[in-house]
């Protein structure tokens, strides 16, 4: 909370300062209304809008990293919030009818705020496009933050299933093949036992990045569970998928992961399996992929 106040102190101080100055000007120039004169409907409507706008401002500042887009959006909201505040004050303080400037204080900030907000939204859209490009190979077709994996920068099994359902639909419609590759690290538990769980987590994160680099732009990689990853390859036949799987396997064998503590080189290897989608749903397809992996897996673990 403290860091939040510190980071955005200028925005908040500016808004409260402006609101306070507006209040002082109104008090100096006008008289306070009597109870029967106050239109409570207007107070509720305009006051409620001001409170909600302020809520949006706080949510925005909390959610977004600082930067130009955040500045534009928050400035826009500040202007609109100030305009609504002056509107509310109007209900409590009677001003002389010949005063024109009060109209300016109430009305002018609104369009300015709207313009700033629109400009901010435009850049927000551009920013989103840039982020989506960075998220390539990690998500396609849809976004759901609740399905992100909590360890690697990938999506988890639930995302994979939903994505797969859509991708299967598309491949049937477009009459294009769709293949899956599963990548499972060998003796991963050995690493956990010998170097600790934290090192194991590091390996998973490293491998996730490595696999991403070895995939094509249209592919999507997810972490199925534990040390098992699945890549969805659209418009890819079985033969091509086998080639990609082999490349992924080789890239893991060539990865020089060094432990965090002693910089010791770990030799990794992986078992891979591929399937091409036939007329089946995503659960059956994943089951078949898993069976393929079980067959390919060496029974006895070697002591790496």
């Amino acid at each position, binding site marked *: 909370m403290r860091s939040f106040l510190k980071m955005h102190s200028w925005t908040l101080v500016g808004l409260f300062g402006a609101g306070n100055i507006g209040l002082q000007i109104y008090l100096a120039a006008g008289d306070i209304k009597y109870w029967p004169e106050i239109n409570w409907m207007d107070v509720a409507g305009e006051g409620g809008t001001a409170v909600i706008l302020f809520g949006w401002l706080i949510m925005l500042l909390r959610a977004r990293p600082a930067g130009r887009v955040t500045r534009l959006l928050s400035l826009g909201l500040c202007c609109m919030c100030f305009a609504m505040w002056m509107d509310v004050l109007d209900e409590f303080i009677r001003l002389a009818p010949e005063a024109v400037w009060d109209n300016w204080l109430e009305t002018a900030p609104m369009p300015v705020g709207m313009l700033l907000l629109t400009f901010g939204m435009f850049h927000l859209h551009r920013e989103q496009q840039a982020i989506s490009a960075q998220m390539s190979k990690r998500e396609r077709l849809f976004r759901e933050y609740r399905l992100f994996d909590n360890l690697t920068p990938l999506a*988890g*099994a639930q995302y994979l299933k939903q994505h797969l359902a859509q991708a299967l639909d598309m491949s049937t419609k477009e009459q294009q093949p769709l293949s899956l590759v599963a990548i499972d690290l060998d003796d991963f538990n050995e690493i956990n036992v010998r170097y600790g769980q934290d090192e194991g987590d590091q390996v998973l994160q490293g491998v996730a990045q490595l696999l991403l680099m070895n995939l094509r732009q249209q592919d999507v990689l997810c972490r199925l569970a534990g040390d098992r990853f699945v890549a969805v390859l659209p418009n890819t036949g079985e033969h091509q998928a086998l080639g990609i799987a082999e490349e992924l396997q080789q890239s893991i064998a060539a990865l020089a992961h060094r432990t965090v503590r002693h910089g010791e080189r770990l030799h990794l290897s992986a078992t891979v399996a591929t399937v091409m989608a036939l007329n089946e749903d995503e659960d059956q397809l994943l089951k078949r992929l898993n069976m393929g992996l*079980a067959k390919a897996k060496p029974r006895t673990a070697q002591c790496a």
Partner: protein
Amino acid sequence: MRLTALREAPEAGYECDSRFVAAHHLPAVLIDLARSRNIDTHRLLRGCGLFYEDVMTGRAQISPRQFLQLVENTRRLLPAADTPFLFGQRLWPGHYGAASDVLEQADHLLQALEHIKAYRALLSPLLTPVMHFDEQYLHLYWRFSCGENDSNAFLLESAMTAVVALARRQQMERLPWRFEFAYAEPSHVEQYWVHLSDNVAFGRPSTVMSLPRAHLLRPWPHAGSTGGRVARQTCDDQLLTWGWAASFLDELNEHLTRQIRQPLSLERVAAAFAVSPASLKRRLAKHGTSFQEQLDLARRDLAVHLYQVKGLSNDEVAQQLGFNDITNFRRSFKRWTGLVPSELKALLGH
């Protein structure tokens, strides 16, 4: 007659509110897992009657109920599907002093499982392993030591993963485990594939993990060590100090299973435990269960075991359970399992 009754009197056992679980042992594994995923310790321990500072003293002891609250909090704050499996992987042998030494220095998997059963108050206070053997397989079931609750699936998943991970770690090989679950296939079935085995089946009569017996006696790296024997002595001493080795519900279950052919009633069982019927009833209510429920549970487990492992006929099973009337037995069986015996047999593939 009186004397035999006295000698067979069951022990009292630990209850859900007995404080004996060292907070820096099993619960700390869960706390550390949550911490590694950036969960705030204060939020994690809320409602557990425990502060992180208490755990750090190394003297704090909590009850199974508090431990369960911790599990529940973890499920809420760390709802990722892999949480119970990661917890299970870190569970055994662990760093719990003598109890961990006993596990680590066991001669083979069978002995390790026997140790987990014998020292479950130290190694697995919430779940009791139950082992049955047939000619080819070990069948390992799990019973909830302190009653069933919302975290059942979490506890089962972690205990099963713990056994698989312990065996793999000590024997340096993937063992051909086979799993059956009494519940429907969960949405996170891939966790089962990766952490347990590719051989999993759901919607079965009971939840059990099976392993060909040949794998049970493969020697472990620290077999037959003196340290292991000393550690066992230390654990035995601890159990002697407490005066029990199993939970109250375990003791009750054992008593009911042993006396299953006798007519069993709350009054008779209370007399065997040397408590008043009202007190027994209260104690059962504390664990969220009742006498009839426990009796049905014991009968169900025995019946399924007799069908599945011994391959007995309806008449034989009914007789073993003390039923004179086969129709009555069939009706009761349907109440316990939701299946009539013929449906169960079809499921078992007999």
